């Protein structure tokens, strides 16, 4: 097993050298006005991703690469594995050239691979690597950290922690509630997943206060998205009776049909929703809900989100 001594200063120096090398390999077209070509270093935040080593690194890499276009950041990926005494790091640059542009945009990435016994070391390495004065966000996709009860060790590293409660091994409502109780800002991609559906419902209702809203979900048990939707409607419309029921069959417990007083019926699907309002049938587009889309929406919010917190509060109360 390899275990190197890792110091933040060394990684920062490597990052500096990386930029010089990358710029040398793409100096821009000779003879053009300076600044028109070449590299542009972009950074608007530090994104720290905690993942288990078994996770498909290619898929995560693609998600992060897509995310960089909207949220250029210093990305720190921490891969956690079982076993003893392993800790290593490497630095790389993610570059792309937007369509029609001459300049290449590059973001920097640091990858740390560590065994769980080095989690404390990881925290002391990651802290100084964060870009000063810009938001720091954690994407938590490591079930290992949750199982080890080590959430508290990583929370101080960031201004916000993002989880996906519909993923196996993810923190549940209780853990999310505890994070909020301790003053941290949290986001849940299961909540983000229903943003457009919520916006559609709010738009359709306008000032109307319906008597009954029924949410029918797939499968036998309501999943986090259904629970969030119920809690949001319950909190926002105190005079409306909101109920959920299983639509039967197999499934992940996600909303299938929303009936509002039997006058409006919404059937959310992949990428769109069908709406019936009496004789009027319409189609509204909804985001497909890819991981990078959801994360992108969540990265835009680095403050307490009172609507989310109100819904979570209702679920955990």
């Amino acid at each position, binding site marked *: 097993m390899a275990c190197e001594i890792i110091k933040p200063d060394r990684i920062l120096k490597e990052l500096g050298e990386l930029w010089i090398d990358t710029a040398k390999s793409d100096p821009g077209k000779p003879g053009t006005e300076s600044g028109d070509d070449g590299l542009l270093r972009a950074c608007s935040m530090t994104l720290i991703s905690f993942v288990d080593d078994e996770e498909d690194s290619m898929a995560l890499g693609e998600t992060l690469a897509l995310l960089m276009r909207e949220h250029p950041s210093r990305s720190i990926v921490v891969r956690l594995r079982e076993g003893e005494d392993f800790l290593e790091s490497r630095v790389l640059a993610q570059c792309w050239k937007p369509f029609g542009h001459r300049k290449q945009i590059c973001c920097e990435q640091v990858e740390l691979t560590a065994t769980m016994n080095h989690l404390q070391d990881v925290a002391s390495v990651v802290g100084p690597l964060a870009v000063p004065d810009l938001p720091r966000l954690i994407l938590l996709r490591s079930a290992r950290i949750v199982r080890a009860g080590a959430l508290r060790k990583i929370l101080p590293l960031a201004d916000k922690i993002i989880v996906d409660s519909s993923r196996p091994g993810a923190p549940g409502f209780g853990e999310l509630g505890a994070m909020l109780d301790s003053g941290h800002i949290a986001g849940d991609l299961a909540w983000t997943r229903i943003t*457009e559906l919520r916006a559609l419902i*709010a738009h359709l209702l306008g000032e109307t206060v319906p008597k009954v809203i029924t949410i029918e979900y797939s499968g036998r048990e309501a999943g986090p998205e259904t629970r969030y939707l119920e809690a949001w409607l319950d909190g926002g419309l105190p005079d409306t009776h909101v109920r959920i029921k299983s639509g039967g069959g197999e499934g992940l417990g996600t909303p299938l049909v929303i009936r509002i007083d039997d006058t409006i019926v919404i059937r959310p699907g992949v990428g769109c929703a069908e709406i019936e*309002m009496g004789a009027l049938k319409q189609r*509204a*587009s909804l985001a497909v809900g890819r991981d990078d889309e959801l994360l992108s929406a969540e990265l835009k919010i680095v403050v307490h989100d009172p609507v989310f917190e109100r819904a979570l509060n209702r679920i955990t109360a």
Partner: protein
Amino acid sequence: MPRMVASFANVNLMSLEGLEDPLRFSRKAPPCAVVIYGANGDLTKRKLMPALYRLAFEGRLAPGFAVVGVSRTAMSNDEFRERMRESVKKYLEDSPFDEQLWVSFAQGLTYLAGDVGQPDSYGELASHLKAVAAERQTEGNVLFYLSTQPSQYAQIAEGLGSVGLQHPPEGHSETWRRIVIEKPFGHDLVSAGVLNSRLQAVFNERDIYRIDHYLGKETVQNIMAFRFGNGIFEPLWNRTYVDHVQITAAESIGVEGRGAYYQEAGALRDMIQNHLLQVLATVAMEPASSFTSDAVRDERAKLLRAIRIMRPDQVADNAVAGQYGPGRSGSEHVPGFRQEKGVEPHATTDTYAAVTFLLDNWRWSGVPFYIRTGKALPKRVTEIAIQFRTAPLAMFRKATAGAEAIPNVLILRIQPEEGISLRFASKRPGSGMQIRPVSMDFNYGSSFGERSPSAYETLLLDAITGDATLYTRQDMVDASWTAVQPIMDYWATQKYDFPNYAAGTWGPAASDEMLRRWGHEWRRP
């Protein structure tokens, strides 16, 4: 015990009502019908319909949404839908075309053939809108969009008024009617006044939306965010620190098929009177007390009224007209303006205009604002350059080879490569004190990779939701015509030796001379 929830930006749980989620929900349009006069025209095909479709794509339109196209061409609803479908597919930018969504969107599209000069056509429109309101549940809200020849604006407004379409039916206090008109708002100060009187005889001023698509551009809006959302720049934004300001809107192409139209308009009317004076107002206005429609527009109007009106004997020194002759753009030969299709061989149209404006207010007294715009210039660029005064003592005179200190320049780039740059002096590495200018760049596209809405998406949604902040008001139109009218009058009396610049160059020599008199020179963007 309920969990404590922090507040943000003056919004907290107690103030959130119902299903609101201001952090996450984007603005949505209420149910309405949009009536487009000139539905078979270029603007509808290239800009309006793609913008409406994009709003539908983003789920911003209510299910109760309808478009009624009106023009003279006889066409069925299905033919109109098919034409619009082709246009949207062709002109939709940065967006996928979703065939199924189009089918749903197109259900709300209907067409009415009608001549705006025929009084009966307005009665037909009124009946049609009633049927649309019932079928599409538009709640009687209507936005009339005039995308016709400007000479028809007043006639159409009066026609709508003749059948009472300018007001919602009695007892419907929540229902609204609004009218959008495109520039030009008149062709001079007098005609602008006449147009205004005729429009206001029918519609309330608050329901008249004069569109200037420059104000809908994200980067123009960002000027306000930059100025008023940051604490460090505004204290420098005045005559004490700013030496002069240059606003450039350069086109690398010629008139390209728009010769006949352009011949009547010219650069001063087509660009400076509207777009660039609005940009100037945005750069130089006082902070509004709030970001509300009237507060922002009041400040813009105040600034436009502060423009010093030139006397006829001052115009020659402060305004330069130009017209391009044959030249080269890169390796391509560009014909002169008079050789363009539809242009008269002795046309005296200004394809280039440069003006020095002075503002008579406390903040900007004595600071020249140079505006230039032109066709067939070396590159396409729109930018605002704010040049600051130099440091009071030229400590490094030797280091700059005897030149005065290097002035700081702040550049707000509107297009292309939207962004902000600051030029400042830096020591070159090595022994001795060698100074050279360096640039600190912020690039909009690399910091925010997300798609920016087109100006028409922004402005259409604003009109439908009743937000007139980015629309021009009559007093602003009057003030900007008042500022350029003496120039137009003076130029009309002059015989210019056109062409006076070659295509592919930065305009006539007289324009450089105009700045030289102030001890300045144009930037080469």
